């Protein structure tokens, strides 16, 4: 696992030497900040702030952010030719995929940590439900991990970053709209089945309201494991080409 940490550290370094990471962080903070201030004006003096405010917002943001964070991870290695060196280095494909995935997840975690400033502000002026906040953040952290794993898979699939980003955005969007799927299907049972397959279906009714359900954790962990497995397969297919 030393190689995983090496790849992870190299990726993190490359995030922070390029201006892109900072620009993403700035945009991210602006987006969450506007939402936070907006909610603040409504909640002021009337009710406690929704502890899941930022996590709820991120369920939508991740549809665009996850592809942005992952599109270059494997696609760029292919374009620059470094993939050839990685695949001939004495490390397993799993280590490569895991290192890449963890780097994206860690960067996302850092972005998430930045939004804790809002929680600090809320704590200084009210008594919010801390454990509810923790549940919601845990949920969106896992949710983010799942979206990033999906993004990584598409990055492994193609050399073209734009194509990778577009495809993962499409898939994430489809996985997201479960929330609204009831409006097009007529049967509740079908709606519930689809709902239980979607990313949102394992966040909105549980983590967002302060519940940690075992099945939701398994769902996100399962999506991550399957997407990483598929990424390894895609990487392997690259050797055959």
């Amino acid at each position, binding site marked *: 696992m*030393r*190689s995983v940490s*090496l*790849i992870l550290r*190299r990726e993190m*370094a*490359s995030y922070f*030497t*390029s201006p892109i990471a900072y620009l993403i962080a700035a945009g991210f903070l602006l987006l969450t900040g506007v939402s936070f201030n907006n909610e603040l004006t409504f909640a002021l003096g009337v009710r406690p702030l929704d502890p899941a405010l930022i996590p709820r917002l991120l369920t939508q943001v991740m549809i665009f952010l996850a592809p942005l964070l992952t599109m270059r991870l494997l696609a760029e290695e292919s374009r*620059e*030719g*470094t*993939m*050839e*060196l990685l*695949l*001939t*280095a*004495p*490390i*397993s494909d799993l280590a490569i995929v895991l290192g890449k995935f963890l780097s994206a997840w860690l960067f996302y975690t850092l972005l998430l940590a930045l939004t804790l400033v809002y929680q600090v502000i809320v704590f200084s002026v009210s008594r919010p439900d801390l454990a509810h906040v923790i549940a919601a953040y845990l949920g969106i952290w896992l949710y983010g991990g799942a979206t990033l794993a999906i993004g990584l898979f598409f990055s492994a699939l193609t050399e073209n970053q734009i194509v990778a980003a577009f495809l993962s955005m499409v898939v994430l969007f489809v996985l997201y709209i479960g929330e609204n799927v009831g409006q097009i299907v007529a049967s509740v049972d079908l709606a519930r089945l689809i709902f239980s397959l979607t990313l949102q279906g394992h966040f909105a009714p549980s983590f967002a309201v302060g519940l940690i359900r075992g099945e939701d954790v398994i769902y996100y962990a399962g999506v991550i494991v399957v997407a990483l497995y598929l990424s390894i397969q895609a990487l392997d297919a690259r*050797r*055959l080409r």
Partner: protein
Amino acid sequence: MIVVQELSKYYGQRAAIESISFRAERGEIVGLLGVNGAGKSTTMRVIAGYIPPTRGRVELAGHDLLDDPLTARAQVGYLPERVPLYPDMTVEGYVLFWARLRRTPRAAERTRHVLERFDLWGRRRQLVRALSKGLKQRLGLAQAIVHNPPIVILDEPTIGIDPQQVVEVRQFIHELRDHHAVLFSSHLLAEVEQVCDRAIILHQGRVRDEVRLSQLGGVSLEQRFMSAISGRA
């Protein structure tokens, strides 16, 4: 060091290489010679462990590439035809990364050693993207030997760089002979003649001839090459 037996790689029905066999020992520089598309790169990629062969066997310093891929790959330093670089890393960071990834003992020391060898130590803090083409080529060579592998595979290492650098690279390959088995490819007859101990002539994916350059016996490499590729297999 390198044992290649009956190696074939098919893309669908088309054979990129077919039944290639040869050996290379430590202290030997073996050149793969052939026109573009002869199968030089494919052969090297298979040996380096990038592409799995359709058939055949590769043994690298006693380790079978298919049975024990990770150990076998650790025996190889590889420079692909297109130099693979991370443009946003520093020169030192780049080499150190590969040294560590290949579990080089005392990686920092080795990194310094090879960077000094290639005259890059002074530029160690520069970003890779800022290097000239020739320097990038040298950096590619540095990563290939930083872990001191018994086997070094260099795919057309002199392509696209200026004549002075070409001389330096050839000089370097010569130096490698003492401690490594070197497999190197070129489509330049003169280069192979000058650098190699042995040349394997590839054409249309097959080994057409194998020439020990010290035993040419009056015939020029060019003549051997032309007769090898014109004859029917």
